[in-house]
């Protein structure tokens, strides 16, 4: 209460208007954040918490709540080979999309981090796939990866290779689905990495060049270490997204839930199949919580790695305003906004007009 001493004036002579004014001053901050918290409690917090409640019961989509079964739903999900199949498929598709995507995005970002002609055009061109919704991506790639006709089959034929059964064999189907993810997200992630690269002070490169470091050496010894927080941010967002992949595998064979033989059924597809076609809300909820814990675990691992890197590093990484690692990595990609305007103007002066 002592901290409010400045606000507390001699209380006697307050008019109604002054009281109203004071109420306005004190209550408004809370009123302004209230809609967010009330709505988020309803659509964000309640569903996650209540999912846990549902997971402890036998719960049918139509019949509703049944007997309390404790952790039985978790036991039955974790001992279901189809769950582990879905888990393995998810990891496989995730690795096939995250790894090439990160490598190519970094390369493209490095190429864009030069005084290019038509800079705006190149930046926009790599973002084109991002505006195509996952449903449309899946519909289009379903045709591109058609076993018998379409561009990929044509290409294989051109090289005299046998047709690949994209929708039936496990590994090829994972490659096809991962390529949808890669196609849509590589350019987007390249832009995030480009922003981080542009935050690196140019004189670091210049002095390294004076010391005789060639382009490749500068890339490995300056660029990569300096953008590492952003790289980790990109990894973690693609992990969270990748673990929840649904649309692409669902539509790769729209009449099944992840392939005729579950060749590409992912965890969320497994959850979806339990909840809707099979109407088993109890086990579906248990699956949701298992996935939730896996995602939290992935986040914590990221937190640990980021902190380890930051304490080991003496490099001047921009210090963000909020002390949170997830945010730290974002802020590194946020902060260049300001410093970039300076780089932009210098390149413009040099005549690098787009």
């Amino acid at each position, binding site marked *: 209460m002592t901290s409010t001493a400045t606000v507390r004036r001699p209380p006697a002579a307050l008019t109604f208007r002054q009281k109203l004014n004071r109420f*306005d001053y004190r209550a*408004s901050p*809370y009123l*302004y*954040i209230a809609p*967010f918290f009330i*709505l988020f409690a309803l659509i*964000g917090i*309640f*569903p*996650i918490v*209540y999912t846990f409640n*549902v997971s402890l019961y036998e719960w049918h989509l139509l019949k509703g709540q049944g007997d309390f079964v404790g952790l039985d739903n978790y036991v039955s999900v974790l001992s279901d080979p189809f769950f582990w199949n879905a888990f393995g498929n998810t990891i496989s598709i995730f690795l096939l999309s995250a790894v090439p995507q990160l490598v190519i995005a970094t390369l*493209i970002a490095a*190429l864009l981090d*030069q*005084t*290019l002609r038509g800079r*705006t055009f190149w930046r*926009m*061109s*790599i973002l*084109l*796939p991002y*505006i*195509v*919704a*996952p*449903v*449309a991506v*899946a*519909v*289009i*790639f*379903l*045709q591109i990866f058609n076993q018998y*006709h379409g*561009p990929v089959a*044509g290409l294989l034929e*051109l090289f005299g290779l046998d047709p690949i059964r994209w929708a039936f064999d496990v590994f090829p189907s994972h490659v096809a689905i991962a390529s949808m993810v890669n196609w849509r997200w590589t350019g987007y992630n390249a832009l*995030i990495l480009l*922003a981080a690269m542009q935050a690196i002070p140019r004189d670091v490169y210049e002095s390294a060049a004076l010391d005789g470091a060639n*382009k490749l050496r500068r890339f490995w010894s300056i660029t990569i270490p300096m953008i590492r927080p952003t790289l980790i941010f990109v990894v973690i967002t693609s992990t969270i997204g990748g673990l929840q992949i*649904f649309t692409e595998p*669902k*539509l790769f064979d729209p009449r099944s839930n992840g392939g005729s033989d579950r060749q590409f059924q992912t965890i969320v597809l497994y959850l*979806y199949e339990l*909840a809707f076609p099979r109407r088993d809300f109890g086990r579906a*909820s248990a699956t*949701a919580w298992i*996935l939730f814990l896996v995602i939290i675990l992935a986040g914590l691992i990221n937190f640990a790695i980021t902190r380890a890197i930051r304490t080991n590093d003496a490099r001047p990484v921009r210090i963000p305003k*909020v002390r*949170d690692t*997830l945010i730290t990595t974002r802020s590194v*990609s*946020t902060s*260049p*906004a300001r410093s*970039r305007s300076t780089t932009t103007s210098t390149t413009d002066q*040099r005549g690098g007009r787009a």
Partner: protein
Amino acid sequence: MSTLMERTRTEPTATTEAPRYRKGKDHERPGILTYAILIAFFAISAFPLWWSFVISSRQSSDTNLVPPAVLPGPNFLGNAAKVFETAPFLQALANSVIISGAITVSVVFFSTLAGYSFAKLKFRASNGLLLAVIATMAIPTQLGIIPLFMLMAEWEWVGTLQAVILPGLVTAFGVFFMRQYLVDVIPDELIEAARVDGASMWGTFWHVALPAARPAMAVLALFTFMAAWTDFLWPLLVLGPRNPSVQTALAALSASGGQTPDHSLVLAGAVLSVIPLLILFVLAGKQLVAGIMQGAVKG
């Protein structure tokens, strides 16, 4: 052979560029290889969309052509008309505009309001509450679909647009994004001055904060609209086939057709579903690029 061609092509450019860029360091100028890779990447980025358009303007059997067809045919309008006959696509477009529009207005307004409060107003527990916002950003809300579905069934909202709109009304990320922007952009003195002049809290928000927040609001609106437009899982659960969104209508179109799907028809649907965002991309692509580079997206 190819190196020879590269040489001859590079030389004239090099000589014309030399005087213009004398000041810059020559080794900083990207070579022809950079442009070659970027062009290849652009071709890969554009090919699936272009090929869809090509097939949707021809007939289904043209997917068989080797090498693949690269020039559009005359049938696009015919195939597009068939899409509108086969699926309730017009209604789907209208529904998606309503859903995405409502979500965008709500997210942008409530995010600006709460972001302003966190950035510029002093109140007890503000730091703790902001941390709560940040912590909730990491929650994969998609995993709450089962209770949300039960709620919609209870309210008899299944099949209605409000069932899709409600779960999108606010995002923790939006609040955090607006807070980060406003904390730097509005000087505290400006708000104090407005107070001294007798403006109410709401008046200060409306006349001082809102105009200052406009650029960030536009970026947030752009990304919120896109996310709502492209969302699939939740609309699939709560919207029936008779009242679809663009995405669920396209998915249904793709699943229809049995053993012999009409590729031109399905791809015409895909092209039609992309056109609205393609227009947005042409009009606001620069802002999208800038937004991503400023971290305006949740990833």
